[in-house]
């Protein structure tokens, strides 16, 4: 059996990267002769969530319930997983902050290795995975010979796809006894993020990016207007936050947010490896840059060669013109 930790949104839907992780699990299961794929969720799943997971080929949805799961505690999530995983050969999750954290707890408790941000696997004997290292600037082939094999799947390593012949997933609710020690480090308060243009950075369909080319903290007016016109979020490179032009929570990159929008519009961003690590999962990239040889331009889907301070106001004006036409 393969067990996948599935993360959910505040409204109880499976996050897309968890759907990708299940898709990855199915390909692994097929390679292993059709072993079943089970999902573990925290909190009782809605019928819609159970139906979605069934559509993705999940055999059983294990729901962790009870007071221990009222707020997040990585050790408690791992303890619950331990209780339901039985003799599974693989325990995995999406490579989100939560996913990496819980899988690290699982691996530490089981005394096995863990691979973070896996992109693919090559064969089962030995089980070798390829994962991102150095912020995506290099790849590592790593042996995962332990049972269970514990790993997380990098965002967009595979495209989420429902199963060809899904069944009906059984829902089993578990209320495990969680040791007090596993509840010491738990979230004691959680506040909604302040509503601003970066609040939905990780889930935005469109992200407008800004780098050193913005020039100053005052140089963001046109970029913010474009962000608003496309109904997106603003993301920035590390240099922008280091210079204090914009807050850190808007940072995209290896040490900031990893985004996966339908369209990323980096303006005046050269595309250093660390930034690329945060935006390479975008489905399409429209780069605006004065340097046609900048890595961000050569790796982009589309590009405009020019100064963002000329190009962005012109785009804004064109959008406004068409809206009033």
């Amino acid at each position: 059996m393969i067990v996948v930790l599935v993360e959910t949104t505040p409204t109880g839907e499976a996050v897309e990267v968890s759907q990708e992780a299940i898709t990855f699990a199915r390909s692994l299961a097929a390679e292993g002769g059709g072993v079943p794929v089970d999902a573990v969720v925290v909190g009782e799943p809605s019928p819609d969530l159970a139906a979605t997971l069934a559509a993705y080929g999940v055999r059983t949805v294990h729901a962790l319930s009870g007071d221990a799961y009222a707020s997040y505690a990585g050790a408690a999530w791992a303890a619950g997983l331990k209780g339901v995983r039985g003799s599974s050969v693989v325990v995995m999750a999406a490579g989100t902050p939560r996913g990496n954290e819980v899988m690290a707890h699982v691996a530490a408790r089981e005394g096995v290795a863990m691979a973070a941000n896996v992109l693919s696997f090559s064969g089962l004997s030995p089980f070798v995975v390829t994962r991102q290292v150095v912020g995506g600037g290099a790849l590592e082939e790593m042996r995962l010979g332990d049972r269970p094999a514990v790993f997380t799947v990098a965002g967009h390593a595979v495209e989420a796809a429902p199963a060809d012949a899904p069944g009906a997933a059984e829902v089993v609710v578990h209320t495990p006894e969680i040791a007090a020690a596993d509840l010491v480090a738990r979230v004691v308060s959680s506040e909604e993020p302040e509503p601003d243009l970066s609040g939905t950075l990780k889930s935005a369909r469109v992200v407008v990016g800004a780098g050193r080319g913005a020039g100053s903290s005052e140089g963001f007016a046109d970029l913010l207007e474009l962000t608003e016109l496309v109904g997106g979020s603003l993301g920035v490179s590390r240099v922008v936050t280091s210079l204090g032009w914009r807050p850190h929570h808007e940072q995209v990159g290896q040490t900031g947010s990893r985004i996966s929008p339908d369209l990323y519009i980096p303006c005046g961003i050269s595309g250093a490896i660390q930034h690329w690590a945060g935006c390479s999962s975008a489905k399409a990239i429209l780069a605006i840059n004065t340097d046609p040889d900048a890595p961000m331009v050569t790796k982009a889907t589309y590009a405009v060669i020019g100064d963002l301070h000329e190009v962005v106001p012109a785009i804004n004006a064109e959008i406004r013109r068409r809206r009033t036409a």
Partner: protein
Amino acid sequence: MVSVLVCIKRVVDSSSEVVLTEDGQGVDGRYAGFTMSAHEECAVELAVQIAAATGGTATVLTLGDADAVEQLRAALAVGCTAAVHVVADAQTFGPSDVAREIAAVAGDHDLVLLGNDAADSGDFQVGIRLAYELGRPVVNGVSSVSVADGVVTAEGAGPDGHETYRVPLPAVVTVLEGGVEPRYPTVPGRMKAKKVPIDERRPTAEPVGPSRVRLLLPPPTASDVQILGKGADAAPAVVDLLEQLGVLAR
């Protein structure tokens, strides 16, 4: 008086191109230079702040070869008061090995701070493994940490908003960049750092290793970028594209 241990790793500064060693087992830093990760810079800053606020100490630790002293001195220059160097080839140590070696030093300290993940290996697990080695609670991936009355308050961004943890000492916390601004070393700070004796230690056991088969570079992808135009004249083509992609409400 909180005794803080902050753990750092000497990593290749890979802001440009990644070059691999000939044996494919590591990243070649001869030309790029070395640094510590951004997360660890913030962990060092937090360690210094907590030590100052509580009248305690901030000890910096690294596991690495002789050259890793450079990163220890950098941490001493910004306010760490002592340094421990576990002399070893970090490339041959896996996350469990590193956690075990930190645990051998951490017993004397109330709070252990680490970066959320190493900038090179990106394992996301040393801090958590360390917590299990020590039998202590661990808070992961937070950007601000403070200590008062024996309780650590740690805060950071969670998937649904700003999250707060409160855990009693002793504890382990892994730090993400962004909550504090690492300070620059002063000239007196650098001079003082040169004189601090480094506590050199040997690993307590043979490493199991990182399970690495080899490193490789991502396959180069030929650029197939579609240039929409130059300067402001490209605006109509851009807006056509935005409409075509369905990201612009008409």
